């Protein structure tokens, strides 16, 4: 457990941290898809606990007052909410740049037109593969892929910009060039090629997803070439699985430095996976203001800055570049969120953990454990 003295925690302003840049708003954990790498917590929030329309509007007002620039309306599947229209209209009225992060499968053209007219500014559509059958198998939703292709066309028809979000792993990474071509064919502005990040659901399914180092090298070559060839035509964002990186990612730009995340019931989290750290206590917008939470919440202050770091992070000259990597990954793989993220090659656990993952990548992939709403896992993962 954590031995940081909580009473001595410095607040955001004492770290020189300004207001967050963007809010990731998980409107609901409900989702018709069952992707086995879902970023939602393993314990999903029920509909009855979700914030109301007015509560979200108040959050939006507070975010703007603090100086936030963007809001990402996400989930679960945000379009399950019938008040999405009201929420988008309010975001636009307040001047927040409004993104919708969706699987698309519940949308129709009329609703999309309506959302655009109310001020929606960007749609990010998820794709599980370019191969119809495999995409539907991964998402656990029959007919999903063909519906998504249709939705992508509607997005462009209403003249909204489109990002294709493509989560890649060993079971679809050989289609990487097809993903990029699909984004071009769909007239997307941007494509995100994101390797699975292993927390929560994805960690349960790691052996089914982790690519071999050779697959990864090949993928990186493809992306680098496409970035040159498509400069000015298609923006390609690329996230490598940090198991194979030399340095850990500077997760969220540092804990509690740039972003915040809200779950469907209004808990304010430093990142979407923060609930996997069992000793964190989150403050809730039903009880405290967003501004107060950003400045004072223990869940934020506990890993802000560098004071909390043990070695090797403490004495590392990259400590204010990587910020120790990812707390949730440190928790999941070492049992202590304070430890150096084992994705870092300097971590004492790096070799042991990542050679284990690389071994998994060589074996036949096991069956998926699907993200099913209502399923509860009580055992440690």
């Amino acid at each position, binding site marked *: 457990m954590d031995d940081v003295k909580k009473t001595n925690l410095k607040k955001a302003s004492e770290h020189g941290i300004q207001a967050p840049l963007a809010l990731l708003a998980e409107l609901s954990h409900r989702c018709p898809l069952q992707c086995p790498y879902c970023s939602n917590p393993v314990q999903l929030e029920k509909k009855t606990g979700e914030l109301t329309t007015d509560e979200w509007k108040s959050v939006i007002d507070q975010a703007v007052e603090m100086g936030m620039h963007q809001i990402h309306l996400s989930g679960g599947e945000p379009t399950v909410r019938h008040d999405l229209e009201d929420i988008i209209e309010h975001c636009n009225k307040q*001047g927040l740049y409004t993104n919708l992060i969706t699987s698309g499968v519940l949308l129709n053209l009329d609703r999309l037109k309506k959302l655009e007219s109310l001020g929606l500014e960007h749609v990010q559509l998820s794709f599980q593969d370019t191969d119809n059958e495999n995409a539907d198998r991964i998402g656990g939703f029959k007919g999903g892929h063909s519906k998504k292709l249709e939705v992508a066309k509607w997005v462009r028809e209403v003249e909204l*910009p489109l990002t294709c979000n493509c989560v890649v792993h060993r079971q679809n990474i050989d289609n990487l060039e097809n993903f990029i071509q699909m984004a071009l064919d769909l*007239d997307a*502005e941007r494509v995100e090629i994101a390797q699975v990040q292993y927390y929560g659901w994805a960690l349960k399914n790691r052996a089914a997803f982790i690519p071999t180092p050779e697959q990864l090298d090949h993928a990186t070559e493809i992306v680098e070439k496409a970035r040159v060839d498509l400069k000015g*035509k298609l923006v390609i964002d690329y996230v490598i699985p940090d198991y194979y990186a030399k340095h850990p990612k500077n997760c969220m730009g540092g804990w509690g430095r740039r972003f915040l995340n809200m779950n469907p019931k209004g808990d304010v989290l430093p990142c979407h996976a923060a609930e996997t750290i069992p000793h964190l206590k989150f403050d809730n917008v039903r009880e405290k203001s967003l501004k107060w939470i950003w400045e004072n919440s223990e869940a934020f202050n506990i890993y802000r800055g560098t004071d909390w770091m043990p070695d090797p992070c403490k004495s590392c000259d990259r400590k204010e570049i990587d910020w120790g990597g990812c707390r949730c990954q440190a928790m999941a793989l070492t049992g202590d969120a304070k430890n150096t993220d084992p994705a870092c090659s300097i971590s004492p656990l790096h070799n042991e953990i990542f050679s284990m993952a690389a071994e998994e990548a060589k074996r036949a992939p096991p069956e998926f454990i699907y993200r099913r709403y209502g399923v509860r896992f009580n055992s440690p993962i």
Partner: protein
Amino acid sequence: MTDILKIEDETVPRFPKHVKFRHNKARDEWVILAPERLVNLDQIAVEILKMVDGEKKVKEISAELSKKFNAPEETIISDVKEMLQDLSDKGFIEEKNG
């Protein structure tokens, strides 16, 4: 998206529909917002971008700035083109009717 744009004197630059050049009141700063992108701007960039209205050509923008800041036009126009080219390469500027 269209082919790669080369910013010339005659180009009429504008922001694509999904790119917003906005003033953030709480921070009192101008920024460019695009999908999951935030571009912080220095004061010179802000002055240039305030002129980008989808009507003025690069050379007209440069001439106005040259007058406003009492600076040689050939310096200004090369700064303007360089900055707009950089923003265009990143997808934040397009050409009107381009």
